[in-house]
């Protein structure tokens, strides 16, 4: 978009200083013609197209993983149910967990990052556009290889693939190999993506945007990238060792030949625990963008949130053995990992209070993105608290590997990450497509999801407390777990419907949604400076950044020049978009 268009849209006619700084346009001449139609999607290196490809592909995997989840819930809805056998169920658990983590949450955040990071920092693309395309296609091939296993035998060792169960002696079929290739391909994809993010964020920021002024979402993507770079080699090494154990006669993890199965657990969780922060921090970033916009006041404690993000990431590297409290371990080691896990809770608590303080006394604009963003702290607090409870190792000794953990991980991953992702979807959809998602359908979707989610997962805490182990396909009638499971199954279908409503909303709004304009929410960050959807080069003019909320400065500047009181920029927007 051009600066002139921006002003025209705001109703200002001003020869303004913005235009004076405009650089000469880049003129395309003598370039090979780009393919049109669907081919342009296959060959693109544009970060926005790649971002959209990521979002579409990951949401497809989200639906697949959701269907797998509902099939499991159907089986668990009644005691001694016979809808499916153990092999099928174990396949579903492994597919679901792996899909949701490796093929949905981590890459969907890469998708948002891809689309938004260059826009938010005022860049015209990522640092390495071709590498970016490679990342995406590696991810897609990882997913395809993994799901190819459906044609022979799916993996049956859970998303954690613990040895020796995952060794060829116990699971000789190719399912575990498919899992290993998925880990390698998506791992490589994430690693290249992370390097790209780091290079982009460090080198391509607009003038005036010091590291202390980058939007919090960008900050969390930066931390996400560093965490990926640190954590991924561990799982890549472990998966390679497992591969050679399975096929080339090594015995890293085989106890009958002097190997150690616990080595797998250490290597896996050294990646696996940072992975959960990889999945949650950018979601925190999303709501740190959404809350201030809809509370119409600056984020409370920008520095505290940024610092807490870095602190969480650092401590996330020091807690991995809290997943191994039931293995034979010296008490001092247990105490260390309990303490380090506690330490993570502190910066997390700081963030929660910062978000709440952001909302306090705000001029709240009740829009769907805010609903999802405001639900996140509430749900994440439940997951965070149950996490602290599990970090107390005597309690974990009882609750480890029970449904309490299943409840905990879904409160964190669904209540945290996925609600954040939905907030991001509703918030940035207008930027990506030029159209708003329907508010009515959006709020309906929110409430159905919110109630369904809590119905599904709250009772699972009780199932765990009453002794129900996780990853079981069957339980006896007299165990006393049936009521919990029935409620959970009903809730899960409600949750599924809630998600579908949003997908329908996306489908409808793509065609019929209200025109969004460049800046429907009166956002704070630079992506709202350009058109919706943005042109290929993102910005003709990249404004100079003077604060963490550059768009506020720009609006103020324009109004001042018009002679209107500057204060009115902070007012709730006219209901143009509703």
């Amino acid at each position, binding site marked *: 978009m051009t600066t002139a268009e921006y002003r025209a849209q705001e109703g200002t006619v001003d020869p303004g200083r913005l235009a004076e700084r405009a650089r000469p346009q880049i003129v395309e001449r003598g370039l090979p013609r780009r393919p049109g139609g669907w081919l342009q999607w296959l060959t693109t290196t544009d970060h926005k197209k790649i971002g959209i490809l990521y979002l579409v592909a990951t949401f497809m995997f989200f639906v697949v993983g959701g269907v797998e989840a509902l099939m499991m819930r159907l089986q668990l809805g009644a005691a001694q149910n016979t809808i499916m*056998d*153990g*092999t099928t169920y*174990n396949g579903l658990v492994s597919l679901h967990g792996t899909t949701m983590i490796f093929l949905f949450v981590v890459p969907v955040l890469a998708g948002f990052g891809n689309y938004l990071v260059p826009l938010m920092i005022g860049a015209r693309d990522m640092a390495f556009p071709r590498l970016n395309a490679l990342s995406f296609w590696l991810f897609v091939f990882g997913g395809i290889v993994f799901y190819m296993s459906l044609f022979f035998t799916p993996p049956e060792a*859970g998303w954690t693939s*613990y040895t*020796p*169960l995952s060794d060829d*002696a*116990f*699971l000789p079929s190719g399912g575990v190999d498919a899992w290993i290739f998925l880990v390698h391909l998506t791992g490589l994809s994430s690693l290249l993506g992370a390097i790209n993010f780091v290079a982009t964020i460090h080198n391509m920021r607009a003038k005036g945007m010091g590291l202390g002024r980058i939007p919090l979402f960008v900050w969390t993507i930066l931390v996400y990238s560093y965490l990926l770079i640190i954590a991924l080699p561990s799982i890549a090494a472990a998966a390679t060792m497992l591969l050679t154990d399975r096929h080339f006669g090594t015995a890293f993890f085989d*106890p009958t030949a002097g190997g150690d*199965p616990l080595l797998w657990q250490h290597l896996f969780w050294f990646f696996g625990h940072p992975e959960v922060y990889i999945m949650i921090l950018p979601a925190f970033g999303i709501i740190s963008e959404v809350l201030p916009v809809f*509370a119409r006041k600056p984020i409370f*404690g920008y520095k505290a949130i940024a610092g807490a993000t870095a602190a969480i990431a650092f401590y996330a590297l020091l807690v991995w053995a809290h997943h191994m409290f*039931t*293995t*034979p371990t010296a*008490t001092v080691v247990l*105490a260390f990992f*309990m303490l380090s896990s*506690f330490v993570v*809770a*502190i910066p997390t608590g*700081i963030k*929660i*209070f910062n978000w*709440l*303080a952001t909302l*306090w*006394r*705000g*001029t*709240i604009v009740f829009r769907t993105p805010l609903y999802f963003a405001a639900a996140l702290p*509430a749900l994440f607090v439940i997951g965070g*608290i*149950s996490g*602290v*409870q599990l970090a*107390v*190792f*005597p309690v974990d000794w*009882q609750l480890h*590997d029970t449904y309490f953990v299943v409840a905990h991980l879904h409160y964190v991953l669904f209540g945290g990450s996925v609600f954040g992702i939905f907030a991001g979807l509703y918030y940035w959809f207008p930027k990506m497509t030029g159209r708003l998602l329907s508010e009515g359908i959006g709020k309906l979707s929110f*409430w159905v999801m919110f*109630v369904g989610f809590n*119905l599904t997962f*709250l*009772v699972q805490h*009780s*199932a765990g*407390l*009453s*002794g129900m*182990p996780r990853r*079981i396909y*069957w*339980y006896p009638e007299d*165990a006393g777990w049936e009521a919990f499971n029935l*409620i959970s199954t009903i809730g899960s279908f409600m949750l599924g419907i809630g998600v579908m409503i949003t997908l329908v909303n996306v489908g409808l709004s793509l065609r019929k949604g209200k025109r969004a304009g460049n800046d429907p929410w009166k956002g704070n960050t630079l992506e709202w400076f350009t058109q919706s959807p943005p042109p290929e080069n993102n910005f003709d003019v990249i404004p100079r950044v003077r604060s963490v909320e550059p768009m506020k400065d720009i609006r103020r500047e324009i109004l001042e020049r018009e002679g209107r009181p500057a204060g009115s920029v902070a007012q709730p927007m006219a209901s143009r978009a509703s």
Partner: protein
Amino acid sequence: MPLWRAAWLSFTLVGTLALSGCGQQSTLDPHSEPARQIETLWWVMLVGSVIAFGGACYLLVIAWRRPERTGLPVVGDSPRAIEATVAVFGIAIPVVALIALFVYSNVSVIQATEPPAPEETAMTIEVTGSQWWWQVRYPGTPAITANEIHIPVNTRVNIVTEAEDVIHSFWIPQLNRKVDSLPGKPNRVEIFADEPGRYLGSCAEFCGVQHAQMDVAVYADTPERFRAWLDNQARPRPTPPTPLARKGEQVFLSKQCASCHTIRGTSARGEVGPDLTHLKSRETLGALTIPNRKGYLAGWVIDPQTMKEGTKMPALDITGPELQALVEYLERLR
């Protein structure tokens, strides 16, 4: 916004249900000191958690319901006051609470839940997990059984557990914590029951197809009954009393059964499956999958895969009369 209220209502409703954890292998119905300690710790944490969660929700609801109004009721609305509130509730109180929790669980609970030194306890039992059943040995006696562990009531018992193949986890929620059963790395836990009765547990580490049906039961008996039980388990199998049972023993020894199962007093010395010497003294078959009654037993012998999908016992070619004799024989192994 009535929706808020509806959501809140359902939330509390489900919440109440959530707390009423119960059932016969509940961690909230402890029967030993360690399990009780952990339960108390859990309730203490729950109270703290509810306060923390309630506080966060309260602030969220206030922010939501009173937009544009001044700050919190007590705190007021000066930025200073709000910053102080964040510091107190976001940093100071959590730090203090977590330190208290750390000290409490390390100093008090750990004492009770530590595995005992082996010589400290009255007896030791060795429990070995295999895909998908538990072997139970009483060192110092020839007694070997499966899936059903008998212990004297009010006695500290040292369990040493290991795994034969993949990782399993031994867990009787009402009697104590769980410990992983690892191949080649013995792990220990004390169990104790303050009342005679049957305490159920499940394998708690994912171990393959039948992880769901790898249960275990602990029977806490009076000391006299326990003695009598153990003495019986230590003896070789009772001699088959009827001709049909004698024929059954021949079938057992001539089919592959003997290569997998041990029946002490015969030449059957297999170690793949459970020791069947006193099969009929157990209440269940297949790691608590089915009751140990004649019909089920016959069904198991002829077609174990239907009774328990994937079990490591194969279906063998057995004719009708052979089956009849086998079952008659097995039924007499008291």
